[in-house]
């Protein structure tokens, strides 16, 4: 199924591209149909999995314990194969990817006039790359998809972006590319030094537990860490993000914030920490410090922005700091929190970028100084914006709160002072979120803009995301149940991490 899903998306993208010749409105329908077909394919495959498999602890080294697993030879000489595996975590990420993919298509439904076919093709190809990233178990294959998702995204920004798109697209490309090459280097080093008798392998299951120790291990780990933290993005590798987000077309921003950033978090959780338990353990205090800095720094810069999309972009930097903290705290609460943050932030930020796109489409500006009082003209947009603003500041009852609470609660057990510092982010998030509402929808109405409220198409996307966040906030258990066996399989690989951190960070034991 997994290879088929990727192929479906690749082919669907190509069909969408060519369908432009028949009718310029056709590509978006083809793209939508492709994503829906992908969802159907995924769900039918999931329906075939015996239900008890969802609850047994997943052992990543055992092919049988994956929900779905397939392996085909590709380059046998170097031990490279088309090895795919899906567990609860990948499944959750796939659902998020395809769901937000649909949202992305809706959000730019009538925004694109230039080469709509190629636009939709790039959009769907990005999804194909992301799906590949979430399914690959062969590290070489993983790297391939890591690069595959980059190129169509680059094109989306470079061709359909806004006024400064060339710079932003180049910056995005170079940051991701350079860090990706570091990862490739690390992958090769890891595979070569783990090879015995010249039998080299890139398989995740076989590489687990074979990381070099000492400085070599740390350096190899850092190759992964930098690649994933650039994507996350974590401080201080985040500076590509505000530019890319601001300049990308709406669908690009939705994909970027909703899904692409999550590949960084996924990479840390799936590869970086389990492959290098010892080095990660030593590095955890640094990673956590970067997380805390990211939370506060992102929030301060978000407050300083006048560009709506830039503000949301910096809020992403702030929110992804929680993911970094949760991953390196490495206990059940914090890890579940980090995963929940990946999903909840994906939804809430995608919605905010859709809002940004809708505003720009109507007002032809992203400058919040030129907005204000829009609630009067567009109460539905205002209500939606308010909902996602309070979601992003972590209102209990919505998914983002569950995520942040669990991360901080888990972190508090291992590093209380880190948790206390990170909690400042709860205040600063309120500052920028409410300021954003003030600048756009509240305040004196500006009569020079006549603005259309959300229509049925946009409202339906918003309602779905609102329901999703409420569901994640009030009954998140299905998500936890899905990922719990995965985490139970991963956690023993790095069993003594928390106590080590507690010892490393002064004043650690509560």
């Amino acid at each position, binding site marked *: 199924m997994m290879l088929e899903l990727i192929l479906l998306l690749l082919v669907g993208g190509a069909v969408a591209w060519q369908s432009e010749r028949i009718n310029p409105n056709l590509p978006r329908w083809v793209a939508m149909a492709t994503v829906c077909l992908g969802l159907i394919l995924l769900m039918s495959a999931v329906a075939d999995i015996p239900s008890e498999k969802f609850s047994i602890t997943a052992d990543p080294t055992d092919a049988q314990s994956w929900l779905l697993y397939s392996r085909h030879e590709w380059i046998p000489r170097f031990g490279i194969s088309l090895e795919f595996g899906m567990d609860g975590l990948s499944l959750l990420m796939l659902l998020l990817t395809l769901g937000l993919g649909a949202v992305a298509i809706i959000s730019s439904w009538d925004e694109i006039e230039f080469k709509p076919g190629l636009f939709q093709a790039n959009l769907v190809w990005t999804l194909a790359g992301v799906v590949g990233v979430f399914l690959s178990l062969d590290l070489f294959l993983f790297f391939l998809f890591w690069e595959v998702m980059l190129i169509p995204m680059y094109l989306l920004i470079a061709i359909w972006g806004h006024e400064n798109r060339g710079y932003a697209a180049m910056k995005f490309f170079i940051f991701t590319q350079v860090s990706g090459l570091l990862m490739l280097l690390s992958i090769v080093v890891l595979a070569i030094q783990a090879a015995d008798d010249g039998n080299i392998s890139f398989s995740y299951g076989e590489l687990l537990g074979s990381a070099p120790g000492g400085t070599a291990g740390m350096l190899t780990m850092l190759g992964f860490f930098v690649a994933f933290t650039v994507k996350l993005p974590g*401080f*201080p590798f*985040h*500076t590509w993000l*505000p530019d890319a987000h601001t300049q990308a077309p709406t669908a690009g921003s939705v994909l970027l914030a909703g899904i692409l950033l999550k590949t960084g978090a996924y990479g840390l959780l799936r590869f970086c920490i389990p492959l290098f338990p010892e080095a990660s353990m030593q590095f955890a205090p640094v990673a956590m410090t970067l997380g805390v800095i990211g939370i506060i*720094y992102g929030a*301060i*810069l978000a*407050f*300083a*922005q006048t560009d709506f999309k830039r503000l949301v972009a910096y809020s992403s930097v702030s929110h992804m700091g929680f993911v970094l903290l949760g991953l390196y705290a490495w206990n*059940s*609460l914090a890890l*579940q929190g980090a995963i929940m943050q990946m999903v909840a932030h994906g939804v809430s930020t995608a919605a905010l970028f859709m809002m940004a796109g809708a505003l720009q489409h109507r007002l032809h500006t992203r400058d919040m100084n030129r907005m204000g*009082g829009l*609630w*009067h003209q567009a*109460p*539905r947009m205002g*209500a939606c914006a*308010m909902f996602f603003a*309070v979601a992003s500041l972590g*209102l*209990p*009852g919505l998914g983002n*709160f*569950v995520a942040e*609470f*669990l991360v*901080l*609660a888990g972190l*508090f*057990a291992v590093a*209380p002072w880190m*948790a*206390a510092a990170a*909690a*400042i982010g*709860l*205040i600063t998030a*309120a*500052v920028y979120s*409410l*300021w954003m509402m*003030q600048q756009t*929808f*509240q*305040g*004196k*109405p500006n009569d020079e803009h006549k603005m259309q409220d959300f229509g049925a198409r946009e409202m339906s996307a918003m309602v779905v995301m609102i329901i999703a966040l409420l569901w994640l906030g*009030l*009954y*998140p*258990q299905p998500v*936890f149940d899905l990922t*719990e066996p995965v985490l139970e399989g991963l956690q023993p690989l790095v069993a003594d991490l928390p106590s080590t951190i507690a010892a490393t960070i002064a004043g650690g034991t*509560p």
Partner: protein
Amino acid sequence: MNTIALIPLFPLLSAALLIISTGRMPRHLAAIMGAGSVGLSAICVAMLANSFLADGQVRELTLWTWMSIGDFTPRIAFYIDGLTIVMMSVITGVGFLIHLYSIEFMWDDESICRYFAYMNLFVAAMLLLVMADNLLLLYLGWEGVGVCSYLLVGFWYRDPANGAAARKAFIVTRVGDTAMALGLFLLLTQLGTLDIQPMMAAANSQWQVGDTLPVLATALLLGGAVGKSAQLPLHTWLPDAMAGPTPVSALIHAATMVTAGVYLIARTYGLFLLAPPTMLAVAWIGLATLLLAGFTALAQNDIKRILAYSTISQIGYMFLALGVGAFASGIFHLMTHAFFKALLFLAAGAVIHCLHHEHNIFRMGGLRTRLPVVFASFLIGSAALAALPFTSGFYSKDAILLSAWAVEDIGPWLWAGGLLGALLTSIYSFRLVFIVFFGEAQTEPDRQPGWKMATPLILLCVLSLVGGWFALPLAGVFPPADEHRVSHAVEWISIGTPLLGLLLAYLMFLGGQLSVDKLLASSSARALRDFWFSGWRMDQLYDALWVTPYKKISHVLRDEPVDAIYNGIVAANQWGHRRLLALQNGELRWYATTMALGLILLLAVMLRNAS
């Protein structure tokens, strides 16, 4: 048992429908749904209270397990005991009256739908707050009421000043909430649960009185409480929050939400009893706040700001009660305060409503004959606020003062401070009455309150008068209080002080025997008045300490200093690029020379290696 679930469900459902209608619902329907849903909840609460009073059984109801990760299993579950019953009665009872009043008050507002949506959402969140059986669900209600308060303070969003007040309210309380969240993390890490009753039991068995951990945990919870209940040092948001519609001030910023901090401490009293230093801090914070706010109220001239500072001051009394361990007295004062302060706010709202949105008390005057119902309401409300004998406020405040007196060592000091506060309360309350309702008329009312406004006023008048005789079902909730034996002199002084305040207010603001102008003759007295008027310059202090630095930092960082690193790398590359580009200049001589030099260099190296 199902009635329990219905209580928060009615307003929640109504809010959802009102929001979904996005303003297209006819205002009659919106008003009926808005007030009716709270009315239905009130009926359910009455039924529940009735059966509770009959058997005294604690009721618990689990709706579903919120999340379950390892041992962390918070539920969406309710815990109903006497304390909850009192809080629910106040919220739905007073809440219903305020909703009814709102129909008339907000009738001409185009956004009446949005108004009732927020108000209903608030009631639902407040109910969740008091019904929650664990601190996480309580926190959900806690933040929920915070957001509703934000939405309602900034209800008239077109004026940026209202937006600023709303943000201030949310962010200042959020500072406290963050402390509270850390408290939850600490409790969860140490005690392994956030379910309030098991948690207090675990604390009792794990901790000794005076241990560091309970002191730290309660101090963090206290942070949340002072934020929400507008106590020092986080009280500055409440006076500004008066920017919202007046019924909002009555419901949220007088009767219910601001007392959530008092409820929190009372609810987790088992933890606080393990932490005497925190208890002492609660008492001193209460005392300091009640005095500071009392002095400030004396100097205000906006009718709603006077009432706002008075609210801060009265919650100070509740904190004082909690701090000296008189939990039941604190809750008692919470209830009577809800009656008379809601009454005062609604009466003030009626004045504002009938006087073309006039807020300045010096432009009112002579309303005694022109708005008789409102005058009676204000008189009764002020009497209860000032704790004149036989009003509801008298019983509750007297209980607090006597409990304070009974504390070892510092008791008389706390009592004397509270008494000074009572004197201030009496003076500023009757200053308000005398200036607004007596003397020369400054502005003519253009209408009279209709039945929807008058009925709640009359009912609240009755409650403010007789509320002191209610016996609250708190016996099973808190540990039994010691019987205080105090001398009759102390009692008589406690009773007499408000009367002295009334007399002083009469002499200053009605009789004219004591001239305020003479008091303000010296420049230092005027400076003191201005100091009080500004709320002891707390806003300026916080601006200088927090707001301005934060804005400055964000302004400095605005253009992304981190990018300088990457720009540096880019610049270095470009520099190298230009240097290297210079080599390729198209001149054959240059190429030949460099080639020859290179060759010689290579040969030299090779020869050297060979030898």
